């Protein structure tokens, strides 16, 4: 599996050689199939996991390293999943959750063209923006820097200044307006 493969590509599921040197250091650890010896698992109580505050954009160890997707990207992936459900040969039970999610994503997907989404992701500087914030920017139609600061509380930090936010918002608006539908 190519660690840097884009899930929106048509050939994502094809086997590609593992590119060890190209692997991004920040990626999540893939669990191993070799489990440690079984131990008693303590019952799960309502703990910190339920109260992670998105205001800091730190989502806990589970989600900080996982790839965060925008609604438009999810729509592309789900469309492909729907097409491939018949092909693989293993029957999958009818997935109500998938239908609802697809309906939601179709309604709120601001971009239809996968190339636009890729361009957008490339234009946002990952060293300044947290992935969670990038996804929020892509999902919500934000028009001004004030709106961005009000809706995404984690922008309130020293490394993020208004110019940066303004530039990114302008990029987003341009991409929304001037792209041809797929």
């Amino acid at each position, binding site marked *: *599996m190519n660690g840097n493969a884009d*899930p929106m590509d048509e050939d*994502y*599921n094809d086997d590609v050689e593992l590119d060890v040197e190209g692997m991004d250091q920040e990626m*999540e*650890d*893939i*669990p*191993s*199939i*070799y*489990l440690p010896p079984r131990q008693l698992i303590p019952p*799960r109580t309502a703990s910190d*996991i*339920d*109260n*992670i*505050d*998105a*205001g800091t954009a730190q*989502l806990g160890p*589970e*989600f900080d390293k*996982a*790839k*965060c*997707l925008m*609604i438009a*990207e*999810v729509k592309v*992936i*789900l469309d492909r*999943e729907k097409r491939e459900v018949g092909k693989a*040969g*293993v*029957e*999958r*039970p009818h*997935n*109500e*959750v*998938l239908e*609802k*999610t697809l*309906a*939601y*994503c179709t*309604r*709120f997907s601001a971009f239809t063209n996968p190339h636009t989404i890729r361009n957008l992701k490339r234009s946002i500087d990952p060293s300044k923006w947290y992935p*969670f914030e990038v*996804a*929020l920017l892509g*999902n*919500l*139609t934000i028009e001004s820097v004030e*709106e961005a600061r*009000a*809706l*995404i*509380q984690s922008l309130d930090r020293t490394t993020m200044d208004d110019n940066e936010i303004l530039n990114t918002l302008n990029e987003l608006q341009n991409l929304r307006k001037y792209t041809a539908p797929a």
Partner: protein
Amino acid sequence: MFFLKHLHRTIRLPPQYFGPQLRTAVLRKLYEEVEGRIDGQYGYIISVLNIVEVGSGVLQPMTGLAEFNVVYQALVMKVFKNMVVDVVVTVVNTLGFWADLGPLTMFVAAALLPSYYKFDPAASPAAYVNEEDNGHEQRIEKGMAVRARIIGIRTDATEIFAVGTIKEDYLGPQPGV
């Protein structure tokens, strides 16, 4: 909020499946057990995207089941406190309104609507109406898109339920969507 996560699950197969379709049976069981369900840590597991690895089956001495450790990549949806989302209104009544965020249900209480929204029971469909001075009226009714901030989440075995507010700047009905 949608994430791509690599997850792991132990699939146990009874001996009736120990035949030429063994791997297919493991995958089918995985899809049954995981797709469309909720995991406490990861939220809704919407779809299994691909299978990374299926371990060798280990026979359990007492039960005779074979255990397979499967690692797969899934699309999960999890929401967090204080995040802003767009939701679709489904039910409106005097207590507030219910809205859907894909498979997740959110409730916004009447107390968390700005005070200028009044419930209009006579309207069909029922709606919260905001009469502004310049005659420009805003409504919250079934089928509309509303932007809300999540302030609480409850997860149980069959669904995730959130509570939200629109009593802040830049939140509320989004007419263009």
